């Protein structure tokens, strides 16, 4: 799994890290049950604050892509691979909608109608 971040980019570092991990999960580079590098280790490797990495991991956990358990570290959730793709598309959709001035309410209404 390759995680690359760019200090010069507009996106926050924790979002960049989360996006990279999400990409790795959806593309199958990491499989359910695989461990993510410990936050401390990843932070040292990328020379970022450990809380930046923890924030990225917490976001991934909230999206249901990874599981955080004491003593077992951070592992890819069972449904992670398929879910990561959906989360990626949802984020893309949300970004696109915002760019066109669409509110969240309008977007969810649209989705409800489609379903």
């Amino acid at each position, binding site marked *: 799994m*390759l995680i*690359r971040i760019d*200090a010069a980019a507009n996106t926050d570092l924790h979002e960049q890290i989360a996006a990279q991990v999400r990409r790795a999960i959806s593309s199958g*580079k990491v499989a359910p049950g695989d461990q993510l*590098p410990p936050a401390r280790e990843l932070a040292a490797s*990328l*020379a970022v*604050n450990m809380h930046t990495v923890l924030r990225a991991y917490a976001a991934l956990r909230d999206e249901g892509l990874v599981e955080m358990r004491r003593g077992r570290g951070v592992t890819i959730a069972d449904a992670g691979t398929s879910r990561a793709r959906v989360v990626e598309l949802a984020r893309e959709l949300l970004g696109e909608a915002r760019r066109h001035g669409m509110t969240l309410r309008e977007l969810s209404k649209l989705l409800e109608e489609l379903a």
Partner: protein
Amino acid sequence: MKSTRIWLGVVVPVAWVAAAVGAFAATWTRLPDPLATHWGLSGTPNGSMPKLAAFVLFAGATVLAAIAARVAMHRERGIAQLAGAAAFGGVLFAALGVVTVVANLDAPRWQDARAVGIPLALACCALAWGAAALVSRAARTLERTPAATSALPSIGLGPTERAVWSAGAKNRALFVVALFVAVGGVTAWASGGSWIEVGTCAACAVLVTGITEIHVRVDERALRIAFGPLRFPRMSIAVDRIEHAEKMTVAPMANGGWGYRGSLTAFGRAAVVVRGGEGLRLALRDHKTMIVTVDDAETGAGLINDLVSRRTPVGPLDTTKHE
């Protein structure tokens, strides 16, 4: 160059053949027939072989090793590996031949041969290992280093970018092997086996478990390898020490089997082989070579090459602390 080839391809091999053949020739009439050729753990002889067969075995093995050493000198690549392996075999058989002759000297029957214990056998191995290290080190100067190809892998890392790559390699079959060895150890212990048997099984099981999986990580500073499920022991190679990296296909048998093979210090070449297939080949700046079997090696090689071409680390990215 020329003199190195003569030393490694002629003088040294002739010396080990002469040691084995000479030992038999000089003492032929003073040796029993058959000859004690195998000793038990306690050091007493427990196996024999007709005198002529033993002579043919030791002479043949050392001559074969000498031929291999000669062949190595005609190569362009892999000289050090083959010459080192030849020296190991040649010196080991020469030493064992001499030990066999000395142990049997003036014994009326093979059962009366002198004791040969484990320390002496280990000393023979150490001698052969030392010879192999010296020979392969000298032979490395003959290697024609392949010109760095222009098409080295890259991930196009920008100047403001930072990256870390982590991957691994697993071998389930080796895990089964480790399990079998462990079961063997427990059985030996339960049936009242000697501590040597139990200890050997335990040590082997631990060693094999250590190469059932590895975890590899590359960041700005180093390539790190953690062995086994416990991720211990670990080793690292600084990015500063790397010249370039490539993806390669690793054949375990061509690298001397599975496990940590070779030695960077002694042979200038080492390989961490967990399974066959995809791997990383690191050309180090001091003309040494490190091979690691790992998945997704193309990406890893790309990152290493980008880091090598940069080689000047920048300061920390975020200095602000999140709550």
